């Protein structure tokens, strides 16, 4: 069963587990396309396991082959449909843990978190990388705040709730959140 046909990959449910296949993009040069898909598949599986070790719920990985990852299926609700201040604060804590462990998610949107059995699972580590810099962490949070702003009506209180959770678990939070404000101003015509 095909679950999603996202921008990057087709995600299928087969025999109880989930297959994520990064499909070739015909618009990109083959050489460039293969490089990107391979790099992202490798990084995704590695960093997903690493995030689990930090205490962030992520799907368990069973197998990785070329541009295909087989992993545990999380049958919950995407955060974007259920987000509220309480969940946003919990999300802040998860991102705080992730950043404490030196991981940048790279694509923090409310579609990439799943609420299942009252646990918030972080998925899609396809653009993740290791980095302990304020800048990378700031961009990570900035990308999330942009989804709040572009898709959720009450983005101000969601942002505040996120910051509460983020500050709670991550000692470098204030510096990162200051940088987020700076990044917002820095973008061309921002």
């Amino acid at each position: 069963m095909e679950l999603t046909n996202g921008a990057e990959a087709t995600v299928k449910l087969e025999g109880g587990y989930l297959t994520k296949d990064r499909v070739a993009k015909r618009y990109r040069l083959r050489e460039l396309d293969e490089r990107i898909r391979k790099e992202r598949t490798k990084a995704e599986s590695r960093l997903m396991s690493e995030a689990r070790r930090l205490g962030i719920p992520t799907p368990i990985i069973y197998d990785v082959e070329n541009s295909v990852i087989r992993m545990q299926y999380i049958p919950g609700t995407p955060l974007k449909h259920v987000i509220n201040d309480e969940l946003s604060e919990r999300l802040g804590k998860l991102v705080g843990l992730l950043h404490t462990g030196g991981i940048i998610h790279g694509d923090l949107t409310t579609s990439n978190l799943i609420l299942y059995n009252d646990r918030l699972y972080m998925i899609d580590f396809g653009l993740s990388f290791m980095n302990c810099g304020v800048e990378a962490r700031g961009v990570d949070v900035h990308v999330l705040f942009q989804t709040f702003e572009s898709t959720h009506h009450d983005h101000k209180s969601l942002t505040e709730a996120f910051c509460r959770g983020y500050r709670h678990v991550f000692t470098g939070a204030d510096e990162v959140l200051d940088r987020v404000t700076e990044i917002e101003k820095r973008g061309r015509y921002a």
Partner: protein
Amino acid sequence: MKGTVLGIEGTAWNLSAAIVNEKDVIAEVTDTYSPATGGIHPREAAQHHARYASTVIRKVLEEAKRKGITPSDIDAIAFSQGPGLGACLRTVATAARMLAIKFNVPLVGVNHCLAHIEIGRWKTPARDPVTLYVSGANSQVLAYRMGRYRVFGETLDIGLGNAFDKFARSAGLSHPGGPKIEQLAKKSTNYIPLPYVVKGMDLSFSGLSTAATEALKRNSLEDVCYSLQETAFSMIVEVTERALAHTGKNEVLLAGGVGANMRLREMLDIMCSDRGVSFHVPEKRYMGDNGAMIAYLGLLMYSSGDVMSIENSHVNPNFRPDDVDVTWLE
């Protein structure tokens, strides 16, 4: 919607005035500042606009008159309020205020980025598209949602055209760099790996521009132009596709001067057909900066009563498209 609006564009190097009504563009006159060497010099661009504003406006009024439209038919004056180069914006705003007083009609301050989208919606079949707006200074992916055009992804540093121009200058090519890079790229099929920087929905081009300049030391200009185009365009097409997946919309509209590049169009076309969505490109005169788009969005805003007083007509060099409450759509 009904009315006739005179609009003036002058955010950067193009000075352009147009008169439109709800049916079509009645007249348009453009005068472009082109630097003798280097890139756009903000002060010189503004001086150019100051020097030619009266000529351009006089000519557009004459052209309209030949088609039976006189100054007394004009219902409002629109101007590019931002984003753009401050000095250029102020020059054009001054001309617009003067016309509003002279013709005793309301003034409409128009967001330049939104004008690109709206003229695309007017001149192509696109109705509710994801817009990829790529020009010298801007690189944004926008879509309408709940009363505003939201920015789904954008450059974190410089615009794509600007990145091309910077590279072109360092390679000794004259301004604007884009068309020259496109021609040189056609002569190569040898891809040199360059940094591919997509951060979620956002992009970064300044490192890519620097890496391309560095690559010139070891590779031919043609190969670097080819690789630069392939990398940069793949990045923006990827972000456009992500915005489609995120919003569930099924149309893509291309806007901005960089949209003239045929390789970019080809890549977008492939992505759209693989995804089963339609792809729309306005004719070339409406792709780059033009007066018609300012006049047209001015007309939409005027029709919904969205006008301003002279006192409140300050320009805004950092005017964000997602700061505008969209009054003209259902």
